[in-house]
């Protein structure tokens, strides 16, 4: 079912919205949740919470892209869950893509003080537009979907080391772009 129809179901408070959205995007959400939360059980909880959050927020929010909207909710919920569990055990929550993004921060204090996540997202959007399609997709798969380097490398038929180098170059490039934009 297309996004428009799904959003229409949400807007008319039709419970099929949940079932249809689960069918359409369940796999994507479960993948993101599993990549971040780290296990199936938590992933399931995140997917359910995400669907409920969508039910509660639409129609007040009318997302342009349902996959992007649901995915961003799932990412946040999964990250919170992971952080909560790490805090219980008093260990670092150690999520690789999260840690790697540190490389992209050109001037920490500047970003922290002045830039909201939304403005940063716009800058990243602009930067993504300057990339080739393959690099753009790779960035989204690694840092938006939080997929593992091993899995992405296997899909591309290259070694993990080579893929890690490509990702490193991308992060460096993003850091330069952010710096050029005054951050």
């Amino acid at each position, binding site marked *: 079912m297309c996004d428009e129809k799904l959003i229409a179901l949400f807007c008319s408070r039709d419970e099929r919205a949940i079932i249809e959205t689960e069918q359409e995007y369940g796999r994507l959400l479960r993948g993101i949740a599993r990549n971040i939360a780290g296990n199936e059980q938590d992933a399931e909880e995140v997917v359910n919470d995400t669907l409920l959050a969508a039910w509660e927020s639409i129609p007040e929010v009318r997302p342009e892209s349902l996959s992007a909207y649901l995915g961003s909710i799932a990412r946040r919920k999964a990250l919170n869950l992971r952080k909560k569990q790490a805090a219980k*055990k008093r260990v670092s929550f150690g999520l690789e893509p999260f840690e790697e993004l540190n490389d992209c921060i050109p001037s920490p204090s500047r970003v922290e003080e002045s830039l909201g996540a939304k403005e940063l997202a716009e800058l990243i959007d602009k930067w993504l537009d300057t990339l080739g399609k393959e690099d753009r997709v790779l960035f989204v798969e690694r840092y938006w979907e939080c997929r593992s380097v091993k899995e992405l490398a296997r899909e591309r038929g290259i070694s993990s080391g080579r893929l890690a180098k490509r990702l490193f170059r991308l992060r460096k490039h993003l850091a330069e772009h952010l710096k050029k934009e005054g951050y």
Partner: protein
Amino acid sequence: MEMNEKLFDAVGMIGGRHIEEARSFEVKKEKGRSLPMRLAYAAAACLALFAAGFGISRLINRGGFNVNGFAASLPSAEPTETVFLTVNPTLQPTDEPTAEPTPLPRIVYAGSKRIIDSDVPERGVVQRSLALEEALADPENEGCLFAVIISMSPWQCDDKLEWEEKRTAQIRELYTDPIIVEFLKDVTALAYENAEKAIIAGMAGGESLKRDIEASVEARGYYMSDLYLHAEYDIWKETKSPEEWEVFLAAKKYIDYQYLVADISGTVDGKTSMDIMNENWEKEETRWASLGYELLEQGQIKYMLLTKEQILNFPFEEQYGYKLLFVDEVTGIQDF
């Protein structure tokens, strides 16, 4: 907010077009090398190997190469047993000559199975992970120190349970308005009538939600949340006069607001449940230290170096459950 958290969130908000593109993109696998190329690479590798062997033998014959030194510089093979052993570098003997160096205990720091085990046992129970049990039973590890993480369950303790009770009462208090109680009773009854429509069972909450509703009805006579009951809500509206509906809406708006405030603040007597858990952790850390069980820190990882006896006699508090695990079983990090 941590800074890379902001960046992580920002990546989460990138335009939908990029997400759609990634979802529809078919990754092309890089092709492997062709057979002639692979043969050429193999031949080149053989040549290189031959040249290296030749060079090394020349060096040895000339006495310019110390075979023993070379062998010593090679990394020693990892033990193949189920437990990896190492010596803490800070405890290694120095090169300075001493008459009789004191033997230092080896430290067993890693389990063989990289299992993340988050189950903490019941109150008053100390459990040890399987890998730790195996390492303790291994005669090779006699006299060793074991690097373990203590997983505790401060959320089972008395003051946390008391906190939860107070919080439930606080939330329940919000729903005692007679208008809301009547509404919830009516709507719950409607939901039961319509249960076959799978409004409850077929939704994200599934069977567990249905059980929650049943338990709630049994205990209170109604189900507290109307989150899943929109269809019933509409039916109920039809049976009311506009005036009744307005009164109800005003009451519900107020209650929803109160609930939101209570939910966001998440505090009872000025404390969140996390505050209580942290306080309990700190109390435990102080108690452990006073008994000679000191927590060491490596980055954000807190662990203890304990003897077998200390592990077997771990000093527990009745109100907590504990689990003792190797560091890597919790963090996935072996060389920490």
